[in-house]
């Protein structure tokens, strides 16, 4: 049962269940993170973002030009100058 005095004094064991805490649970957590599987687990966390960063870079530097060229007829129709007064200037 949580006691206010324990909470204020940070004496609850559960509070110390963190990777940097010097408790039995804290040590187990740390060992569960920093072990032989760390590279594999790190790869699982970073690999999707590495691939996605590559995709964003590819889009930024080349790919969307091809997408932009493949415009739908409706979009091309809207591109044509119509009877509207004037287009906004930049």
């Amino acid at each position, binding site marked *: 049962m949580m006691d206010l005095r324990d909470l204020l004094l940070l004496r609850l064991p559960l509070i110390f269940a963190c990777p940097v805490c010097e408790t039995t649970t804290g040590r*187990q957590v740390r060992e*569960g993170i920093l072990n032989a599987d760390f590279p594999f687990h790190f790869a699982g*966390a970073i690999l999707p973002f590495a691939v996605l960063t590559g995709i964003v870079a590819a889009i930024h530097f080349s790919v969307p030009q091809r997408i932009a060229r493949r415009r739908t007829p409706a979009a091309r129709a809207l591109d044509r100058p119509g009877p509207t007064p004037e287009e906004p200037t930049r």
Partner: protein
Amino acid sequence: MSSRPLISAGVALGIGMGGFVDGIVFHQILQLHNMLSSRLPPTTLVNVEINMFWDGLFHAFTWLMTAAGLALLWRAVRRRDVPLSTWVFVGSLITGWGLFNLVEGLIDHQLLQIHHVYELGNHFLWDMLFLASGVVLILMGLTLIQAAPSTVGTVHPDS
């Protein structure tokens, strides 16, 4: 005139926001899975804490992607040769979200199998639905980008 800077910014932001949807909704609110929940089921305090660490790292990378998207967006809106189309931007956001679901689903769920969308029961079906949602979102986003009228919403804030 080039939409590329706006598209890359929107895609990066969409990836980041898609990652936050996954992390906030699936990892935290619904608690359907965690980063390593296939290898370390969150059934003990130690395993929950270890998963929490890796979830935090996932969120850190998601935050970095979002920050990169904001930086790209800032650069894009300051350029006069970049049409500021809402269709293109929203389409790019949706495409980014779809890309996140597809790439993260393929790598973490299928290739490395460190977690699945739903760890209990038939996770294959849920994983396939997640991948399918990625494909659908990408197609929706690309459709919006291609359908965007190039002269709509191109007024630069400085003009």
